[in-house]
């Protein structure tokens, strides 16, 4: 029972929030337009969440994701608006640039042995400077129609941006679950030494995870550029860093409690957005939304860690029961020592707080 609560708690919360706000503001909240608008608005957060999830799975953290999204925004706008580069080519260049940033992040962390927490923190600041230099410190106020239409055009009732988000989620979920590379990435995160003795090179896979994260940050930046129709020299996505991390960690409490997962990220991103927009519609004061979002994150993680502890206790009881029925045959033990990966460092602890609450 509690086990289910842990799994579907966030989904239930989302439904309750939707129902509550719909009853309170039926004409404004319970409209397809509101759903469409909120989902559209959250898409860069969702794709950005995928971008940090992959390095997180290999036990690395990418704090430069928001700066990388901002950089993609600036690069795409400058190329198309100022330099007159054809949109498809500009999109390709943007993706190459952000993937390259990911590669550099990976090399700094794995070849220079700078902890990713510090390395990507430095990279985030550095990218801000690169963005300013590349845009000559001038905001770009419009982008060509081809860029906005690529993102804003409706398909089957939803803007293309939303479809990009959906496709990204499906691709990432598929890669992580059904391709060998996904299993190896998760193995590196779960126990790098065991992975190495199985012929998987942990540092290679960590670098790969940063590159994939960089590519996804590029996708998020392209979507953002189409939505905004402009670029800010000082970085239009920098404020997304904390919402992205909040959505990923809140999402890790749902469906497979204690583990990062794509579906959880999606539900969490929508939940956070609907709560904010619902509160605005109710006329709640400006401070209510950050207050509730922050509290929701802390509470959700606390609840899911409680559910995990409870589940561990049930496992023990079950094993003892089995012991009774088997009467010595097979001899399961009363409790197993929890396994952990490499020695903890700051990053791992930050991550564990959200992804591994049982330990």
């Amino acid at each position: 029972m509690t086990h289910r609560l842990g799994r579907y708690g966030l989904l239930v919360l989302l439904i309750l929030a939707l129902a509550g706000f719909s009853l309170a503001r039926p004409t404004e909240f319970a409209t397809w337009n509101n759903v469409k608008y909120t989902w559209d608005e959250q898409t860069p957060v969702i794709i950005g969440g995928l971008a940090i999830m992959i390095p997180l799975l290999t036990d690395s953290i990418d704090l430069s994701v928001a700066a990388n999204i901002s950089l993609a925004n600036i690069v795409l706008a400058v190329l198309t608006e100022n330099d007159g580069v054809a949109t498809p080519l500009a999109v390709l260049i943007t993706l190459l640039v952000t993937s390259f940033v990911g590669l550099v992040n990976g090399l700094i962390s794995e070849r220079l042995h700078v902890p990713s927490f510090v390395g990507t923190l430095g990279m985030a600041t550095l990218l801000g400077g690169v963005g300013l230099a590349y845009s000559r410190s001038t905001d770009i106020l419009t982008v060509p129609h081809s860029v906005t239409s690529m993102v804003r055009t409706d398909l089957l009732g939803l803007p293309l941006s939303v479809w990009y988000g959906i496709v990204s989620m499906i691709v990432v979920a598929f890669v992580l679950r059904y391709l060998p590379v996904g299993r190896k990435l998760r193995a590196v995160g779960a126990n790098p030494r065991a992975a190495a003795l199985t012929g998987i090179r942990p540092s290679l896979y960590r670098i790969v995870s940063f590159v994939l994260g960089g590519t996804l940050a590029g996708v998020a930046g392209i979507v953002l550029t189409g939505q905004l129709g402009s670029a800010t020299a000082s970085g239009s996505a920098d404020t997304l860093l904390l919402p992205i991390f909040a959505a990923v960690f809140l999402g890790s409490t749902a469906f497979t409690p204690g583990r990062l997962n794509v579906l959880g990220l999606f539900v969490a991103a929508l939940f956070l957005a609907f709560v904010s927009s619902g509160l605005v519609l109710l006329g709640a004061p400006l401070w209510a939304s950050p207050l509730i979002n922050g509290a929701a994150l802390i509470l959700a993680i606390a609840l899911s860690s409680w559910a995990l502890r409870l589940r561990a206790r049930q496992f023990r009881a079950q094993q003892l029961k089995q012991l009774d029925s088997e009467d010595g045959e097979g001899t399961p033990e009363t409790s197993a020592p929890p396994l952990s990966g490499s020695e903890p460092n700051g990053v791992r602890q930050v991550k564990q707080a959200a992804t591994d609450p049982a330990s």
Partner: protein
Amino acid sequence: MYGPTLALAGVDFQVRAGEIHGLLGENGAGKSTLVRILAGAERQDGGELRFFGEQASGGPAERRKAGLAFIHQDLGLFADFSVADNIALSSGFSTRRGLIRQSASESAARAVVDRLGFDCDVTKLVGELPLADQTLVAVCRALAHGARLIVLDEPTAYLEARQVRKLFDILAGLRADGVACVLITHRSEDVLRVCDRVTVLRDGRSVARRSAAQLSEAELIRLITGREDASGNVPRRPGTRPVRRLRMAAENLRGAGFGPLSLEIREGEVLGLCGLADAGQFAVGLALMGDAPLSSGTVALDGRPYQPGSVRTALDAGLGYVPANRTADGLAGGLTAVENVLMSPRGPWWRPLRGRSDRETCQRLLETFRVSPPQADREVMTFSGGNQQKILLAKWLGFDRRLVILNEPSAGVDVGAKADIHRRIRRDCEVNGTAALVITTDFQEIVDLCDRAVVMRRGLAVGNLEASRISADLLTEMAYGGTA
């Protein structure tokens, strides 16, 4: 205690002042529950508990004050603090005007250390001491806060023979002070060597309390398992094995910590490579697996030259490697059994995994290895220690490798699981012709499992024994430097 089930159902347990008392039982027999009740972390449903003649009351803090100390496998020491600080953290710093007096805590620590006859520099960081000395620091810490009953949980699990001897010598010295020790262990030889009396638990009951002097090892194992033949001694037929092809021939290997060393292993053979913990046998395994560099020497695998350049090459050549520490090096606890067993699936990166057939393969494997419960989709950390070890072995033994390198294949598992594991290794070698190189510090394991043994000392092979000559005494003697 745990819902409707009983973990303990009738235990009589009595420890006298100044004795070393062995507490034995298979995993799941109730030892850890008994310890938790003694420590006051859990309450008994019935029965009576007295310490030093007085009715036990209160929680862990009161018990500690009353003179009880518990030393777990994870010693609970601070590796970055000095020995003196570790002791003072528990028994209290002496201060002057609120500031710590370093010299006072050092001399207090030195007093305890000297009382034990334990040769140790108290200003050293605990993390820099060998494991046996760390265990002794934990003992000193217990004595410093006035413990009169010390419970040690598996203190020798990761110690080599020489360190075990040191630990036991010092524990024996506590007898004169009237301090009692309870030794919880899987190793029956430890018990016979050091304990005065023994209590055996089985299925939550105390089934025997004997004086250790009256017990033989076989009798002890029979008491622990309740079975006649569970000692893990698979009967061997020395000499009847047909002569088989050479699987691996290594000549003049040199690497970090060993060499020159030559090894030969035949198809279907279980070769033991043993020695004290620092004899270099583990480095040989790592070098053959391509995880550590070989500085010279040649290796031939099935007659073809084999150059162990990386773990990948080794795997492609048909090797498999089971590390000694399953938690740190072997298993990814957060992944499921099937994800661990098939951690690095073969094939191009874009080909999707075959979920169902992989699961079925893994399921069958878990059943043949007698993992309970045999559920491929379960996270590895939810299995018990012995079952985790079986999963780790299944990862390589199940896949028809040409040569498997097994480091401490039965470390920290109970007698029943150990017998299962030995049976599996032998069966795999007999049937599939896999060659197994068993690398260990546990001489009993060599006696129980191996067809032949190479003994190493300080990086060199000092002996090569056929099955008929293998005995724990001879192995120990050779490992320490005697001649055979």
